[in-house]
Every structure is written in structure tokens, then in C-alpha cells.
């Protein structure tokens, strides 16, 4: 029988591998980000807006970062909080400690995150965005993000920097989303 004390368990990534998948098309590099911790934050009536992990919670359509933490506006008085490299920690409990009185729900294993990086400035990112989502480019400038549809799936699109884009989607549709993303990137030519 296996000795449970010496058992090493390796988490399976959203795409089913033991290591995150990567792909490269032209100047674009795409990679599954299996280390991203997520938790939703919602204000309750009468609570004041907190500043978890030193984050200034962004307004409508915006995204903001402070160190390894980031926040995306999801709706009136609702945000999605990201923790880079914290997926294997109890992120929701840590966030709840920063936001007394607010509603916090763990989201890490509900989503898959893909990070897209361009080696040739923002032009390839803008070209890819035009193929992926029906959002005006001035609504996805660096520091902005939104929830929208991509091939009938709900996704979160975050413009982390001029040359960096993140795509968060339903974990159960991870392979479908990865296929949509890599196919669009491959066809950019």
C-alpha cells in the first residue's frame, strides 16, 4: 500500500497536462497560466470599499495591479481578484481577511487562464483582439479588461500591458477556448 506521507500529488492543469501548455505563432506566444489564483469580491450593503492587498479597486471596464495581485471590475460593486502564482494557496480565505464584511468566493478552479505575449509590440495583440472579441480597441487599452463573449463562451479579456493580453474562460471549456485562441493566432499569418 502507498505510504500517504510520502505521496507526491501533482495537480492536473486545466488542459489536462502535468505542465501548462504553450504555443507560438509568429510574434505571439500563448501559455496556459496554471498558477493564477482567483476569487470574486462583492460589497454588501453598508460595507465600505476595501483595498485588499494594497489594490485600488478599479472602476467600470478597468483592471489594476499592485505587485502580484490584480483586480478586474466585473460589475457594479463586484470585482475579480487575481493572485499570480498563488493558485495552490487558500486564496479566498486570504482575501476574506483583507475585506471584512464583504462576500468572497473562491474561483481559481472554475477558470482557465491563458496569457498572450507579443514580441513585436502591440500590433499583433490588436490584430488578435480584432479576431477574438467584438469590443472596440479603445475599450481594451492597457489597464482595461471586460467580460464578453468568444465563440459563444463567456470570457474575461484583460489587457495587462500594451504587449500582454490575458484570456480567462470557463475551465470546463478550456480546450475549446485554447483551440479558438491558437486557431485565430495561426491564421493571423
Amino acid at each position, binding site marked *: 500500500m502507498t505510504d500517504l506521507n510520502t505521496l507526491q500529488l501533482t495537480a492536473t492543469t486545466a488542459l489536462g497536462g502535468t505542465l501548462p501548455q504553450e504555443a507560438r505563432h509568429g510574434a505571439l506566444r500563448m501559455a496556459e497560466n496554471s498558477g493564477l489564483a482567483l476569487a470574486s469580491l462583492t460589497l454588501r450593503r453598508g460595507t465600505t470599499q476595501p483595498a485588499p492587498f494594497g489594490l485600488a479597486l478599479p472602476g*467600470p*471596464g478597468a483592471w489594476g495591479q499592485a505587485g502580484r495581485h490584480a483586480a478586474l*471590475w*466585473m*460589475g*457594479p460593486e*463586484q470585482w475579480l481578484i487575481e493572485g499570480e502564482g498563488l493558485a495552490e494557496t487558500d486564496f479566498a480565505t486570504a482575501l476574506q481577511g483583507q475585506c471584512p464584511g464583504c462576500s468572497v468566493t473562491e474561483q481559481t478552479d472554475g477558470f482557465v487562464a491563458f496569457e498572450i505575449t507579443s514580441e513585436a509590440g502591440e500590433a499583433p495583440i490588436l490584430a488578435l483582439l480584432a479576431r477574438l472579441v*467584438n*469590443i*472596440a480597441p479603445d*475599450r481594451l487599452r492597457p489597464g482595461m479588461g*471586460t*467580460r*464578453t*463573449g468568444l465563440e459563444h463562451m*463567456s470570457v474575461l479579456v484583460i489587457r495587462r500591458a500594451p504587449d500582454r493580453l490575458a484570456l480567462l474562460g470557463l475551465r470546463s471549456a478550456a480546450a475549446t477556448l485554447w483551440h479558438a485562441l491558437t486557431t485565430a493566432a495561426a491564421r493571423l499569418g
Partner: protein
Amino acid sequence: MLIPHPLLGLRDAQEFTCLGDAALLNRPDGLADPQALTDYVYLRDNPAGVHRELWFHEQGDRSWLVVTRNTLTHEILGAELARDVALRAKGAK
């Protein structure tokens, strides 16, 4: 068709689902006046022209909007958060 979301700017109508007449915001007290509740549940105006409707930003920020729309020309005349409309009506009472 583009809907001018008051918070997020112009968004594709495909991201929304339409519920119908914005008069649904004004629910009468069914115990005080059963006939008014019956009318509220079963009767709808179906105007050819300017109409106020409830739209839900399902693939977006999940907010309810009151969209003013011309049903003859499909022109969108404006949109505001249903929450603001409801709170204003509450304040006016």
C-alpha cells in the same frame, strides 16, 4: 445593433438578452389590488414606435438596463441602469 451601455460604452446586442416591457419594474401590490396585479402579469403594451424595454447584459457585467428603442426603425435612443430607474421611481413616490 449596438447598445450604449451607461458604464461600458457601445456593446454588441448579442451580449444581451431582452426581457421586454420596462413597465415590469412597477409591480403593484397584489393583495391591495388583485386586478392591477392581473394586468401587470398578463397585459403588455406592444407599441409600434418608441418603447422602453428591460435588457440584461448576460455576457458582460450582468446589469439590467432600461433601453429606449424604436420598434419600427430599430434605432436605440438611450440606455440607463435599471437600478437607477427603479431607485428614481422609489424616490418619487
